[in-house]
């Protein structure tokens, strides 16, 4: 039988890390319990060297002393207890209930780190999710099982867009299948968390939401665990109970900063901008948990939200995210300031999976060509705008003037919509034809003539 030892003394406390020696039988990645005067804290083993263990503490280490503690190794990695009762509940960043509902009983214990999904076991996502937002449905279509982040900036309405998607997305139209939303907040402000709570309430899905909250004033290290708890809950619901799960994770930037903080206190060799060299692998271990699997009809669709520091899309966080996720929805401050909601800059936005989820049999046969044409024409608009700034709008050729008109119509009619406006895919595509018809037929070089004849106005 195993004797559980308690260690009464630490060698060192530094930021979120504690070092203790004389340890035997500790295993890598296991969870430790630390009893202090101010209650029980948790941590996990991040490095072992002979009899020394380095433990990363999830809560704050302030108030902890090297003497007055008792550390116990639990022998297992961080697990959370899951059952269908988690629906409608609120948890803290490490998966402990913080509403009045009490503990979760009688469920399954699951390791929050998860395991990589075998590519052989995946099902390729092909089903279109209608979000009711034209810019997304028409141009960067969301597919069930996709991971499609919103690249935003501070002060931009990313929360509203996410809330609108939750409210309008038909993620479960067929077979009356169950759906649920898993919400992970990492270092977000109280009012943001409250906003989401209210939004879920208003759209009547509160009973189907599982929330994991690590707010801005909660311990930073806890943030590393929060999305993992959330995704574990999502995997449980999707693959054990065949539900369609939409996971919203915000804000990935706070998560990465927490990672950097721990990395630097561990004195690791820094990569770009001080972020650890394994940031890519670490982010991938979150994002890759989206998808669909053989043997289960459930799915996990992820909408991570990240705020680009200084609106810089080449910053390591959006950059590495874009390499892992299946596209991105990029918000633009410039468009936002022109009072257009949703302020989506379509040119850098992309949905990698839309090619297999739109067109005949999915949305409408003209969808692929129309979206390609809108992208190509709108990118021409940018060139024309640049030119008109130099030579003035009056000097533009007639065709360039048409492009300017198209650009304006695109932003005012197609892009712009109300927070509670829910457009069907047909409406979105008809709207696209309305604005494409501003351009002469000969400029529509991405659409074949038969389709043009069928839809072109006038």
């Amino acid at each position, binding site marked *: 039988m195993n004797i559980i030892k308690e260690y009464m003394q630490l060698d060192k406390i530094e930021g979120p890390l504690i070092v203790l020696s004389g340890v*035997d*039988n*500790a*295993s*890598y*990645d296991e969870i430790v319990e630390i009893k202090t005067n101010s209650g029980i804290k948790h941590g996990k083993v*991040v*490095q*072992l*060297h*002979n009899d020394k263990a380095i433990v990363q503490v999830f809560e704050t280490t302030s108030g902890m002393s090297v003497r007055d503690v008792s550390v116990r190794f639990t022998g297992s990695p961080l697990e959370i207890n899951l059952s269908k009762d988690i629906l409608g509940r609120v948890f803290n960043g490490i998966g402990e209930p913080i509403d009045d509902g009490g503990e979760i009983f009688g469920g399954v214990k699951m390791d929050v*780190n998860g*395991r*990589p*999904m*075998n*590519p*052989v*076991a*995946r*099902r*390729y*996502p092909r089903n279109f999710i209608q979000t009711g937002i034209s810019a997304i449905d028409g141009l960067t279509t969301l597919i069930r*099982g*996709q991971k499609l982040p919103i690249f935003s900036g501070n002060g931009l309405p990313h929360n509203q867009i996410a809330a609108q998607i939750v409210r309008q997305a038909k993620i479960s139209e067929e077979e009356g299948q169950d759906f649920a939303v898993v919400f992970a907040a990492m270092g977000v402000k109280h009012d943001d968390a409250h906003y989401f709570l209210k939004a879920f309430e208003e759209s009547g899905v509160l009973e189907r939401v599982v929330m994991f909250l690590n707010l801005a004033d909660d311990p930073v290290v806890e943030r590393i665990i929060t999305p993992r708890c959330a995704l574990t809950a999502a995997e449980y619901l999707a693959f054990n109970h065949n539900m369609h799960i939409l996971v919203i994770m915000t804000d990935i930037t706070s998560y990465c900063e927490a990672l950097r903080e721990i990395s630097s206190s561990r004195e690791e*060799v*820094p990569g*770009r901008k001080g972020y650890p*060299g*394994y940031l*890519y*692998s670490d982010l*991938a271990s979150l994002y*890759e*948990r989206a*998808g669909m699997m053989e043997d289960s009809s459930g799915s996990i669709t992820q909408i991570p939200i990240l705020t680009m520091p200084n609106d810089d899309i*080449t910053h*390591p966080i959006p*950059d*590495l995210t*874009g*390499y*892992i996720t299946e*596209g991105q929805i990029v918000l633009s401050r410039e468009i936002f300031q022109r009072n257009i909601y949703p302020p989506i800059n379509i040119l*850098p936005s*992309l949905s990698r999976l839309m*090619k*297999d989820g739109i067109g005949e049999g999915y949305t409408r046969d003209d969808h692929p060509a129309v979206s390609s044409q809108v*992208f*190509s024409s709108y*990118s021409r608009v940018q060139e024309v705008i*640049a*030119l008109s700034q*130099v*030579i003035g709008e009056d*000097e*533009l*050729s007639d065709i360039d003037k048409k492009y300017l008109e198209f650009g304006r119509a695109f932003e005012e009619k197609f892009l712009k919509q109300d927070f509670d406006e829910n457009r069907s895919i047909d409406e979105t595509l008809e709207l696209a034809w309305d604005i494409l018809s501003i351009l002469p037929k*000969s400029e529509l070089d991405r659409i*074949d003539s038969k389709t043009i004849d069928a839809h072109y106005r006038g």
Partner: protein
Amino acid sequence: MDKIQGIITYINGPVIKAKNMEMFKMREMVTVGEKRLIGEIISIDGDIGTVQVYEETTGLKIGEKINSTGKPLSVKLGPGIIGNIFDGIQRPLNFIYEKSGGFISEGIGLASIDLTKKWDVVVLVKEGDIAKEGSLFATVQETPLITHKLMIPPGISGKIIYAAKNGTYDLEEVLLKVDDGKTVHDIKMYQEWPVRTPRPVKKRMPIEKPLITGQRVIDTFFPVAKGGTAAIPGGFGTGKTMTQHQLAKWSDADIIEYIGCGERGNEMTEVLEDFPKLIDPNSNLPLMNRTILIANTSNMPVAAREASIYTGITIAEYFRDMGYNVAIMADSTSRWAEALREISGRLEEMPAEEGYPAYLPSRLAEFYERAGYVTTLGNDEASVTIIGAVSPAGGDFSEPVTQNTKRFVGAFLGLDKKLAYARHYPAINWLSSYSGYLASLNSWYKDNVSEDFMNLRGQMLKVLQEESKLLEIVKLVGEDVLPDEQRLILEIAKLIKIGYLQQNAYHKDDTYVPLNKQYRMLRVIKLFYDHANETIKKGIPISKVKSSQLYNDILKMKYSIPNNYKNEFDDFENQISAYFDSLIEAYEG
């Protein structure tokens, strides 16, 4: 048996250290701990050995044992590789799926191709024959498309003292006994080869043949050679993976190996679902019959990502040794370089540029140098072509992986964000890309396509270059100010860009375009250019030239003229000449 065991003293992610390791060998494969995780020794210092572990180390304890396997990290090479999908250390993912379900767990142990599967073997030698290393001794029809040629492993030569008869055997049965005078070697259907050692060849040969991809911008403008190397760098969303998939689908190599190195799981699934349905234009059989997949997705253990590249190239070399032209798509080499960086960081090595280890350039060079056009030990001509995707951080080509890759590859197909935003695919930038193989492929194009093909290519590229200069002016003063000759260049450049360079991967004809059609399309554009130029010199305004229906027809000829065209191009050319003749006539008359 009293085996030497190491004792773990240090654990940090995929890097562990152990004592009592002085009898272990560098680069030896070991099993780690009670779960018997697979690892490889990457340094030995006194009795302390450092091991990189190819599986998750969660739950590993100090004091657990390390066992030797006595051999370096190797792959088993034999029938059963094609059409299969492996992880970074050649474990079949289907096997892992059966064993551990939808999620990959650790401690599955070593696995490789199925050694119990029976194959029909045709034996080509008899007792008393002299066998040379690399020579063919039997064949197995592995897929309808690929005959797997069983070869005497490198390093073994001698007299055959036993040869099995034609029949059905599994991989463990001895098919041949070869006596080299000292020992008798049992030869089975498979051989083992350490992944970090290149397989030997008789001679490296100069590069002379293109790898035909059916992609116009590559075949015409920036050709890749069989046995050559190419890099496809591009920021996210520029279509690297798409381009790699197109190459994997349509390249005229005999065997395609696709290494998904640190990329998305869904992309591998897409390949797994699509390729069995896609038909190879050369053989009319599903593409899966010639495809090998290696997948280490971004959430799979990082150390195995480092190994996946070597596993891949070793398998490619093995099929090359049979006389096949093999093309490897590595997507993406940046993830591999980052895996190097991650492990290097955990080893606390002194970092060089951007945290990458100082040996990054030499590792890249070692990898790309394993490509080549060769004469094999069995006297066949064969090749390994490497096409590596590069994912530069922030889309900035000045970062170390892109820069170092540029030093070692022959062709550079730079993807451009701006083109991708305008949905110009493939988004290969014609100004920053280059191919170093033009000179060596020149005579092949002359003999096989047309005498004036390279010439035509040069002229069209010149138009594109002039256009980029003119666009600078247009940006300042607008297009209307330019003289008609220059506006014509803009129009022709548009024809080339939209009508030629843009290629629709989802169009049944346009996704793969044979070389002769590429040539005829280019010739049409050139003909139009020449005529238009002449017309404009006579003072006819450009609006007359551009407004013609012909201009739009040229833009759409990629769709309207089928790949197996007959007279369409001749007719089209006549039509163009006739139109301009009448235009000039009307104007002069």
